[in-house]
């Protein structure tokens, strides 16, 4: 355990440094984005039929509390806020804290990302084992190629195809939104069913988009383990197929767990396409919308949260490794 704790402290320090750098970079970039939230709001009001004067005054009132001061002051203010857990105020949803917005978006990202990733992980790992064992067969080949193909194709292609199929050609699933409002939120059948129905397509897309990667990773991992001496040795000791399979699976899956942790972190940022296509109100969509609205605070906050997710995932991946691999855990040479 000592090892784990020492690793953790080291990682935390490095992770914090990393977050600080990323925060600073994003701050600088974001403050240099052209486009003025005030003008955007103004034109929006005009389109809604408000008179030009009225729109002007309304926007002035709305943005009376835009960040002011020199860039440096804003920066220190921002950092200071961060340290106190304050991500600032949203401009596009005035009066609401960025943290609140991110919090409510995050829960919608977590659901399909987690679902999709776990689904694809299970699927990919199972098929990957199969592909490795049937390496030279036709089916194994097909699995490997389809895996590479799906792994190579970008998420949005899959998302668009899935949407086209299930909402246009064969409309059996809702095309967007997180859940039907008709149901009282909570643990009632209607709500849960609706939740699942709405999440199905995004989850399916995540699953399809990443399962190919899992197949490939698992295939090569299994192939490596199969080549390891201890598997042959175990076979020569007459171990049962089930036991043998567990030997292979556990050893092969070990490196994949770290990738799993990492990809969960990455997916927070990668959800952009899927959430846009399915209009799913998660972090990705929040980021896209915040950029459209030039909501600096929200943009910075979302970016920060996505970064933190990655850093945390990195740390988690490493610790996970340390916990489940005895070679690391007990501090021996691997």
């Amino acid at each position, binding site marked *: 355990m*000592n*090892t784990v704790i*020492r*690793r953790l402290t080291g990682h935390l320090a490095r992770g914090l440094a990393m977050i600080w750098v990323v925060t600073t970079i994003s701050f600088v970039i974001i403050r240099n984005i052209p486009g003025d939230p005030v003008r955007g709001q103004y034109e929006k009001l005009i389109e809604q039929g408000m008179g030009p004067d009225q729109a002007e005054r309304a926007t002035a009132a709305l943005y009376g509390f835009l960040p002011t001061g020199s860039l440096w002051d804003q920066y220190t203010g921002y950092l200071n806020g961060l340290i106190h857990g304050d991500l600032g105020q949203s401009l596009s949803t005035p009066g609401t804290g960025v943290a609140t917005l991110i919090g409510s978006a995050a829960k919608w990202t977590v659901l399909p990302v987690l679902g999709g990733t776990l689904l694809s992980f299970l699927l990919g790992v199972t098929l990957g084992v199969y592909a490795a064992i049937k390496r030279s067969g036709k089916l194994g080949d097909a699995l490997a190629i389809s895996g590479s193909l799906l792994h190579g194709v970008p998420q949005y292609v899959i998302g668009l195809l899935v949407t086209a199929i299930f909402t246009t050609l064969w409309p059996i699933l809702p095309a967007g939104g997180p859940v039907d409002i008709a149901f009282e939120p909570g643990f009632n059948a209607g709500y849960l069913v609706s939740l699942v129905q709405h999440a199905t397509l995004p989850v399916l897309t995540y699953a399809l988009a990443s399962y190919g990667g899992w197949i490939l990773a698992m295939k090569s991992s299994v192939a490596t383990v199969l080549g390891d001496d201890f598997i042959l040795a175990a076979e020569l000791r007459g171990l049962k197929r089930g036991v043998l399979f567990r030997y292979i699976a556990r050893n092969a899956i070990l490196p994949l767990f770290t990738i799993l942790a990492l990809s969960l972190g990455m997916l927070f940022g990668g959800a952009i396409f899927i959430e846009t296509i399915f209009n799913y109100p998660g972090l990705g969509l929040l980021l896209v919308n915040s950029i459209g609205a030039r909501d600096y605070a929200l943009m910075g906050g979302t970016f920060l949260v996505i970064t933190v997710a990655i850093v945390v995932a990195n740390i988690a991946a490493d610790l996970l490794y340390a916990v489940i691999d005895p070679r690391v855990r*007990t*501090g*021996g*040479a691997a």
Partner: protein
Amino acid sequence: MITGTGITKTYKQRGNLLGGRDVQALRGVDFAIEKGGAVTFIGESGCGKTTLGRIVAGLETYDSGEIVIDGTPMSGLRHRQRQAYFRRVQLIHQDPYSALNPTRTIHQTLHAPLALRARQMGRSKAWAEERARELLTLVGIDPGYVLPRYPHQLSGGMRQRVVIARALTVDPEVLVADESVSMIDVSLRLGILALLKDLRERLNVSVLFITHDIATARYIGDDGELYVIYRGQVVERGPTEAVISGPVHPYTQALLSAIPVLRGVERPGAERVVPTEALDERHADTGCLFARRCPFRTERCESERPSLDGTGHGHACFHPRPRAVIPVEASA
């Protein structure tokens, strides 16, 4: 002529936080390699042989002590100058499979250092070509066959010869051969050993031979010196034949006892020294380093460390006694 005095080396264990023990690979080793001479280091796994070889070849730094090459102490020199000296010492790796770049032909492999050499000596390109053939012939292989080929097309023995030829391109004074025959088929081992011996005689290169198989030491040169090293310390040293036939340190005797007897051809020696327990780096290093495993240890051994004594055949033991541990010929 290369001499080393009091060479120490400690590996700091990094990254591995729990096992954060430092490893003392060398604890003050003295040695001297005469021009054209042969020096062999033997010892158990992990006792610092490779480390020493790499230090001598300039591929590894050392913590203290001094290496003097042809009268010039290395510690006073700048990195670049030191490199120039160390170029005279060439390391021949244990594994001939990884010692050659699989993507380059033997021709390309030999040409690179020779071209450099030609430039340094103001010779022509043709000289480099000629020299490559010469060297291959010298190590006993057919240049015509070998030059255009890739390493994977050669056998282990051939590769090891190519590796030696490559080392010879810079006209070294010392060849450091680290376990150079352990990965080569039995039937070919003697060939390499004979080659090294031959090179000593013909080119007047010295050979620093590192092995855990003492028998091979005899074939590099019976006029050579043998150093028995244990946990970074030289425990016995002397002319090869003398040490082999009359070992006095229990560790040397244990090593020699462990060598399998070729029954049918040889008979085992009358006595045999078997260590009382296995090597463990965690053993205390107060007193004699071998004490824990020594069947003949006394109280003194556990508190005081013997140092290598004298010149010629010397040892670091409080209770030296010759024992008949080596096998004798069956016919005798």
